Each structure stands twice: as structure tokens, then as C-alpha cells.
């Protein structure tokens, strides 16, 4: 099944996962690229997005699998036609004939930007760095079956902190994104719990790239 890599930025980050599927289904239709449909009582166009993205999160590395009906169209052509039928903030970066098996997807590079209403004191970055160098960090995780404690340290491969401005810090981390999965915003929860003086007034997250377990880029 063909796969495409797309980014979700700007105001498009507020579109939910389910709504984004519809955005793509309609974009394919507008681009004159008919999708095959699922079998069953309520046939649906076959598009699926690898890792659902939380509302509000930016991404430069979303993967979408699709299946076209009818005559074959080159990958570049699909890319161009889709981009002219898409909305601002959703852009196809590349189209592949086929993708790797999703079960090989293991790691994600992401950034979490922490914003403060007041200027930061010296050494804030080092404090954060030290926090994530702990042996363990237990953070409650909301699941379908209630709240469970989760140690997030084993799910962080590497992490660095830099100061963007006098009111902004950025965490850059390589984290597990499948079996187990770390929601990057759990790092913000850890800060709120264990480093309350650096609790951000607002924060946002961005997915940068995807990797397999050997840290090779995953497509």
C-alpha cells in the first residue's frame, strides 16, 4: 500500500485526528485521485494515519497509508495534485510506492517548548537536564482503565535542553512512540510534579521525525 509523509503545522494543528482523515479523503477526491473503499455495510475510503496526533501538536513526520482506485499515478504527481487540493498547514512532503511495516516503528524525535510569563532565572536549563537524568520519574498516566503510574525514564533515549529566549525553553528528545508509547506531554507533567518552580505557563509539542529501533529513519 502506498504511503505518504506529510506535515501538520499552523492553524491545522487544531484539526483532530478523525477530522484530518476526512480532510484527506476529500482532498484525494478533489485531486481526482479516487481511493478504494473498505468492504462492508458502510464503505469508507481507505486512508489510515500511523500514529494519531493530539489536537494542538505540530508534526513534520506524519505517515498516511492510502490505496488508489483506477489507473496508476506517479508518486510525484500524487504529491503535487494533493498539495494543490489541501488546506494551509497540511502539506505532503513525499509519496512512497510502499512503506515499511508499521510494527518496526519505534522511536520519535520531538520537541517540547515551555513558555513562561516571567523571565527565567539562570540555570533553568541545567535543572531540567538534571531532572531527566534521574534514575526514574514516576508520572501518572490516564488510560481507559483509570490512572496508572508510569516510569518515563526508560522511554527517553536521549534528551537535551536549550534556552530559546528569556521566556522559553525547548526540550528535544528521542522517545519511544510504540510499545511502549510515551506521550511527550508527560515530560511536562513530570516537570510540574518534580520541578514545580519550572512549571510552564504554556507549552506546545512538535514531532520532528520517526525512527526504527536502530535509530534509522522510518518511512
Amino acid at each position, binding site marked *: 500500500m502506498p504511503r505518504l509523509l506529510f506535515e501538520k503545522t499552523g492553524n491545522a494543528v487544531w484539526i483532530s485526528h478523525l477530522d484530518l482523515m476526512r*480532510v484527506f479523503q476529500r482532498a484525494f477526491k478533489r485531486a481526482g485521485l479516487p481511493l478504494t473503499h473498505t468492504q462492508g455495510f458502510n464503505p469508507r475510503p481507505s486512508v489510515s494515519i500511523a500514529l494519531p496526533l493530539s489536537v494542538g501538536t505540530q508534526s513534520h513526520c506524519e505517515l498516511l497509508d492510502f490505496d488508489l482506485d483506477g489507473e496508476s499515478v506517479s508518486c510525484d504527481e500524487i504529491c503535487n495534485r494533493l498539495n494543490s487540493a489541501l488546506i494551509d498547514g497540511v502539506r505532503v512532503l513525499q509519496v512512497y510506492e510502499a512503506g515499511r511495516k508499521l510494527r518496526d516503528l519505534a522511536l520519535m524525535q520531538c520537541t517540547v517548548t515551555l513558555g513562561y510569563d516571567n523571565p527565567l532565572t539562570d540555570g533553568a536549563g541545567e535543572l531540567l537536564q538534571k531532572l531527566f537524568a534521574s534514575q526514574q520519574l514516576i508520572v501518572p498516566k490516564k488510560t481507559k482503565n483509570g490512572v496508572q503510574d508510569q516510569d518515563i525514564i526508560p522511554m527517553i533515549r536521549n534528551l537535551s535542553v536549550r534556552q530559546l529566549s528569556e521566556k522559553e525553553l525547548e526540550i528535544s528528545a528521542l522517545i519511544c512512540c510504540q510499545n511502549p508509547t510515551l506521550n511527550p506531554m508527560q515530560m511536562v507533567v513530570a516537570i510540574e510534579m518534580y520541578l514545580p518552580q519550572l512549571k510552564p505557563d504554556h507549552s506546545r509539542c512538535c514531532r520532528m521525525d520517526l525512527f526504527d529501533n536502530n535509530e534509522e529513519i522510518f518511512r
Partner: protein
Amino acid sequence: MTELLQRVLPTVQKPARYTGGEYNEIKKDPDGARVRVAFCFPDTYEIGMSNVGMRILYGVMNEMEGVWCERVFAPWGDMEEAMRKHNIPLWALESQTPVKDFDMIAFTIGYEMCYTNILNMLNLAGVPLHSKERTSLKNIVFAGGVCAFNPEPLADFVDFFALGEGEEITPEILSLYDRAKAENWTKDKFLAEVSKIPGIYVPSFYEHTYNNDGTIAQIVPKYGAPKTVQKRIVENLDTAYFPTKMIVSSTEIVHDRANLEVFRGCIRGCRFCQAGFSCRPVRKKRADVLYRQAVETLENSGHNEITLSSLSTSDYRQLKELTDELIPYCRGNKINLSVPSLRADNFSRELMEKLQTLRKSGLTFAPEAGTQRLRDVINKNLTEDEILATCQNAFSGGWSNVKLYFMLGLPTETDEDVLGIAELVYKVIQTWKEHASNKKRGLRVHVATAYFVPKPHTPFQWEKQITPEEYIRRCRLLKSHFYSKSIEYNYHEPDLSRLEAVMARGDRRLGPVIEEAVRRGAMLDGWDEYFNYSTWLDAFAACSIDPDFYTVRGYGEDEVLPWDTIDVGITKRFLQCERDKAYDGLITPDCRHGCSGCGANSLLKEVACDA
């Protein structure tokens, strides 16, 4: 988008409805826009974006050189709270510009219970509520839509109303404003000039005085304003503007599909129905024009569903030609074609079968009344035989879901009529037992009753509304006669319908009540989550207004009615005559069996009424 808004968005439900940026949204260079219009829909994004009228007028305005029209919707409660907390004024989606910076603020009003949203939106925008407090040419507030056919409850707040269909009148208004702004007119001069455009009603040009009993003594036009203002219509729908480049919402809306209006007006004349009279005369669109617009819209939007809409789609003469072409196109492109508002006639049954191959939907009837006698009174010429024949057909074809809609409190209604509903439902169940192809599935009959609301410009415009207590008694009576487990009976709560009745036939004295209700926190009244009846009762009490005056009192035929200034093309004589016939239990055949002389054809100059 401001940094502040970016910080608020993660804290609210469904943030995508506040950001704009959808496919086919119209953006223009603000420097080239001489007239900027904030087009407000007084309900949420999901409702407003489903409104065909708004889509048409958005396109009409943006087709004009020098005009930029942007969309504004009412925020949900969580967003409103955040806006008030952080002092974020209401903004328009396209440019994120605050509404208070716009030249004109337009509202389209289709439902009485959104009046509080209008005030609340002006409030959130930081625009003064009262027309007289807005003294300059900036922030001219005007409104249209079906509620403008009795605009009096909003007379204090809206500078002028545009009556009827907006395709032609709206550009006339904006062109005049363009000139007024260039020549630096005063607001008074603009209002005086705009009132000369046919179809414009400026409420401040009319003085209402009252009798001791509370009825209106007289309505006196001032400043040379006309005694009555006649609504506008578009005569030729084939050449009228239609937006085939519709905005495609990025988030799910109520009617998330393309929508094609096949004709306007109605030949049926159900005596309770405001749209049936006020949207006359009947004007059709040619099937080939509709087919072309359907294909263009679908290709431009990428929708996988299209609806053919009208007040009664079976009455569209070219329905066969149109669907014969559309069905194959839709099938080939995996598009679902839905045709609501079909009557229970033979062709419709065939058509339903053809559509069924695409996707199966429910079967809905609106007999409105339980006995033939009462159906004749309201001129709803749907017979029991038609209903049962269609049910039989559907049940043998494997359908097992029926919805039946009725009203309680119709003029002349007795307990016998109420129980007639139970009898009809029983016969539907019997039909299923005799004809169901698969009884294992079981049958679901959803029955819903609404509380009759008399509306202006209908033969029932003078009628009493029954009391809420009496309505509930009739609901309970009916409920006690439903024995089958297959029946699911829901009745509307009377509170909202009572208020709707007050607003629908209200006069200017309701302005302070609406304002008081908003002050006490009323908003999004159409939503169960927010509707609070006691807020309204308190507001009525605070203003010393008795809601019963507008509901259970009934209006006298010789009384001056608040909407007497508004002419929708139907003569009062005709409405009176229809009312008399209702009381005699006489039906008026549909317009295709002979013109009943309602008067609406006098609105036509170029084409004939298509009834």
C-alpha cells in the same frame, strides 16, 4: 492568530471551529477592501456552516469588488468563558479581525431562540447593543432570514432588516454603504437612503403605540417610510448566483455535505407552516442547471454526499430527469445522494428504492395530526392510506425503522385527535406484522410530538397556543395509550416552544426582556446544555411582561399585528379565508390543482409562478 488565542485554544472543546483556514475560504487583501462585513450566524459553527443561505450570501458579497465578507459564529460556553476571562473580543474567522473593527455586521436569523445569541455576540464583540447607541457609520448592524418576517422583538438592536431572499438586495445595500463611506455620510442619512431600497425595513422609522389592553393601537411610519415593506425574491433561479466553490469545513458540522436547492416556495399550503407561505411564490431551477451545479460543487469540495433540498422535493417537476442523471454520476463516484422531504407517493417510493442501493436511511413521516379530520383542518393532505402503503412497501423491503412526527395543540384539537395518533401508530405496527420481510430484526417506531407554535404570516397567525399544562396533559394521555414495546415516544418540553411562540409573534416590548435575559446569562437557548427556563421567567417578571399575552391569549382578527408592516406577498384576506376553511374542516387543494389566490404571484414580473 494572536499568541493569546493560541494559548486559549488547547483549553476548549473542538478548537478547529475557531481558527478558519478551511478549503475554499475567501481571503482578500484588507487594503483593497473598502467595505468589510462581519457575517454573523447566531449559533455555533457546526450549525451555521450547515446553512445554505449563509453560504450563498457569503459568496454573493465576496463576488463584489471592494467588499470582503468574513464569517463569525457564536462560541461554545467554554470558549466564551475564556474570551471573557482574557478579554479576547469576538473575531471573524478569515482574518481574525475583531468584529468591532468591521464596517457592517450582518446577521442571518432563522430561529427565534437564537435572539439571545445575537445580543451576546454583539456583547462579546464589544459593540453597543442598542441601535441608538451606535451613532456612526461604523458597525451598522443589519439582519435577514425568516425571523425578519416579524422583526419587532429585535427592533431596538438592529439598524435595519433586509426582507426575503438576499441574492439581489445584499449587493444593493453594500454598494450604497460603499458610497456612504466614501462620501462620509451620517448614519441617519445612510438609514434614510437604505430605506428606499425595496425590501428594507428600518424599525426606528416606525412608531408603535399601544392600547390600554396591551394590543397595538397603531404603527405610524415616519420620515416618509412606506406603510408596508414587501419582501424581495429572486425571480430566475437558473441565473441566480449559486456557490459551487463551497467552504469545506475541516471539522465535522451538522450537515457535512453538499446541498442543492431544487426549487423555492411550496405548493402545499399546510396552514401551520410559515415557510410554506412566506417562501412563495414557487420558482424552480432547471434540472440541467442543477446537474451542472451538483457536479461542480462535488468536484470542488470533494464531498461524498449531496442532498437535494426544498420544502417538498416530490413536488419538483423535473425530479425524475434530475435523479436519472444524478444517480449514475453519484454511483460512479461513490457519492451518497440523499433526498429528504419526499412525499409518500408512487414515484417517491420508486426513487427511494433506487437510492437505497447507495445507502439506507430511515423512513420518516410528518402526519402532524392523528385524525383525518384534524389533518384536513391543518390542510396536511397526507392520508392514512398513503402512510400505510409506504410503510408496507418499506417493511417488505427490509426497513424496520419508522419515525412519525406530530404536533399537539393544533386549532380545534380534541382528545379524540390525540388518541388518533395512537391508533395510527398501532396500524403502522399491524402493517409491519403483516408485511415485514424479516421480523427477527424487530420494529422501532419513534413517535415525537411537538407543541404547536402559531407563526406570523400563516392562517393560524391569530390562534391561541394551548397552555403548557394542557400540552403536557395531552402528551400523557397519548403516552398512556401506547402499549407496544416497539414504540419510543418523545415529547418536546413545552418551555422552549412557549418562548418560541412569544418571540415569533412578539412586539417591541420584548426587546428589554431579551436584553434582561442575556444580562442574566441566557445564551445558546437552542441547546439543552444551556437553556434555562427560569432565567427567562425572571426576565419577563423583571420587565413586567406576561408571556401569556403572546401565547394563550390569541390575537384578534381586527387587531393591529406587530408584523403588519411586513408584506411577504400573501394577502391577509387569503389568510383569513384559509383560517375560516380550517374551522369548517375544508381543505385547499395544492396549487397545482388550481391557484388558490394567495397573492404571492404578484411578486413576479418576469416569470410565472411555477405552482
